[in-house]
């Protein structure tokens, strides 16, 4: 054993220093080569899925005409598809997926648990309940997206009250969240049962989460939310790395875990709410995107940008599938993500309970 030998006994093998971006004395930032490469690959995949979204199917724009059509209004059917149908839908899908990915990454980091994501802790269900209330019980009082936003806010306040102590216990956070979810979906069922069948049908697509018939005003809202909130999430990123090692360790290093957690949850709730208000509660993108990003990037930490890109890719790809499905009827994209994500959630629940972290 060499452990009794002093430090000088064997010089430490020095691994290659990490690459660093330097600008004079003021700037010195580390670069994660793998995350950079993976990020660029995901961007290429998003572009590819976007290309297919615009070109496939009977309304698709011929690939040769796509580039010219993007830069000058082609008019006619192509112009209509690009500026009214698939153009805004794709634009909204990218940003909504990214918002959900970042929201999930923030939630999962502060709770130190993949189950601590907005889907599991009742944000989506709260949004549905709010939408159902506004759309079916008191139609016309508020726009449905506003109802969804209020519902999501009420859900997170209920979870906060239920856990106490400012979200500091991840396990309680998740358990209370599951309870709030259950209450929220029971309430939504009650509202739907009370409403007339026809009315309920109208709302059902929204309650599942859909990107059909989104317009440019939706795109402005969700891209605006991203532009405002993602920089804040990135600023919180380094402190979130320390919270991963436990609140006490983070506090000892000067990262003030309490404030960081509250700020992160506030940003995450706003991103989720923005996503819900444009597309309804699309299930499980927030749960899966950060987990996939983590495995792709194979690096510790929050990976906020990579989670954003992965979320965008998942949603664009899922929406491409439902648009091009051969079932005759276009399913809401939220049903597809719920089926795929539900399987993943089951896997996580089993794994976490085996690990004893729940």
């Amino acid at each position: 054993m060499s452990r009794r030998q002093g430090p000088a006994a064997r010089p430490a093998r020095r691994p290659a220093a990490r690459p660093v971006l330097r600008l004079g004395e003021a700037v010195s930032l580390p670069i994660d080569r793998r995350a950079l490469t993976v990020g660029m690959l995901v961007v290429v995949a998003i572009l590819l899925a976007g290309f297919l979204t615009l070109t496939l199917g009977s309304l698709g724009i011929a690939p040769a005409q796509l580039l010219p059509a993007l830069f000058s209004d082609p008019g006619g059917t192509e112009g209509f598809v690009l500026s009214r149908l698939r153009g805004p839908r794709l634009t909204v899908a990218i940003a909504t997926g990214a918002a959900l990915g970042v929201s999930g990454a923030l939630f999962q980091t502060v709770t130190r648990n993949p189950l601590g994501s907005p889907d599991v802790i009742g944000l989506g269900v709260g949004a549905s309940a709010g939408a159902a209330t506004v759309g079916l019980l008191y139609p016309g009082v508020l726009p449905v997206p506003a109802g969804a936003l209020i519902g999501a806010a009420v859900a997170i306040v209920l979870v906060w009250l239920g856990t106490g102590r400012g979200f500091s216990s991840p396990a309680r956070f998740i358990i209370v969240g599951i309870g709030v979810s259950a209450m929220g979906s029971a309430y939504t069922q009650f509202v739907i049962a009370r409403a007339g069948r026809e009315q309920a049908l109208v709302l059902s697509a929204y309650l599942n989460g859909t990107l059909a018939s989104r317009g440019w005003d939706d795109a402005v809202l969700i891209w605006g939310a991203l532009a405002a909130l993602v920089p804040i999430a990135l600023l919180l990123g380094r402190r979130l790395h320390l919270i991963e090692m436990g609140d006490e360790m983070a506090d000892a290093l000067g990262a003030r875990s309490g404030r960081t957690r509250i700020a992160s949850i506030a940003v995450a709730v706003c991103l989720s709410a923005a996503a819900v208000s444009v597309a309804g509660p699309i299930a499980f993108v927030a749960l899966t995107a950060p987990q996939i990003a983590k495995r792709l990037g194979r690096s510790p930490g929050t990976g906020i940008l990579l989670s954003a890109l992965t979320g965008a890719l998942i949603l664009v790809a899922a929406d491409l599938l439902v648009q091009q499905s051969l079932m005759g009827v276009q399913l809401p994209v939220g049903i597809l993500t719920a089926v795929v994500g539900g399987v993943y959630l089951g896997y996580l629940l089993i794994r976490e309970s085996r690990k004893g972290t729940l």
Partner: protein
Amino acid sequence: MSPILAARGLRLAYDSRVVVENLSIDIPDGGFTVIVGPNACGKSTLLKALARTITPSAGEVLLGGSPMLSYRSKQVARRLAMLPQSPISPDAITVRDLIGRGRYPHQSLLRQWTAADETAVDEAMAATAVGELADRLVAELSGGQRQRVWIAMVLAQQTELLLLDEPTTFLDIAHQYDVLELCARLHESGRTLVVVLHDLNQAARYATNLVVMKDGGILAQGSPTDVLTADLVEAVFGLPSLVIPDPETGTPMVVPRRPRVR
């Protein structure tokens, strides 16, 4: 001249349960202070308060003579490092990256990784002899290796004060002494150490200043030879014992007596 780290009239409580009441302590500069005491006597709680990871409900902790709360959190972290009892290793992190996280208090938004950070991490790895593990995943290490890596992480913080909460728990006896010898070397290199330990004989062997706690207060403090007597062990732990010189180091050694059979 007041010591770098001290506490005055501390009351420490979790919610409404008071654990420590009206406690004052001076931590000798450059000393190796070991805090011992029975379970739930408040020794870990005191350490957390000294590291400002819990806030006293009365009294104050003084750093360099000024109240701890008058500093910015990162300023404190450049002078005082604390290793909690069970920190969580993030998934898929390498040894080198974990140790690098100890550099946070020295970094800023635009200067996230400098040559000074690189040097501090190298030095911390050399001091703890974990250089060979640099590219390994923390999750794959043995308990003893992992503890040395965590100590390297707090060393990379480059602080004058080092607080360790039961650093030998969950380690086998060889690795316990491995960690304690490492602490002794750090002490010799000039750092001020405050360590919570369970084992009285280990405490007596390594401490220059022994603090004995019971029921949230300090019962005795001083050099182990002066403090550790059979009467004290009986009073604090309710355990009748002999205290004899450790044949290896001459420091006091506690040998429990068997209950008298009637």
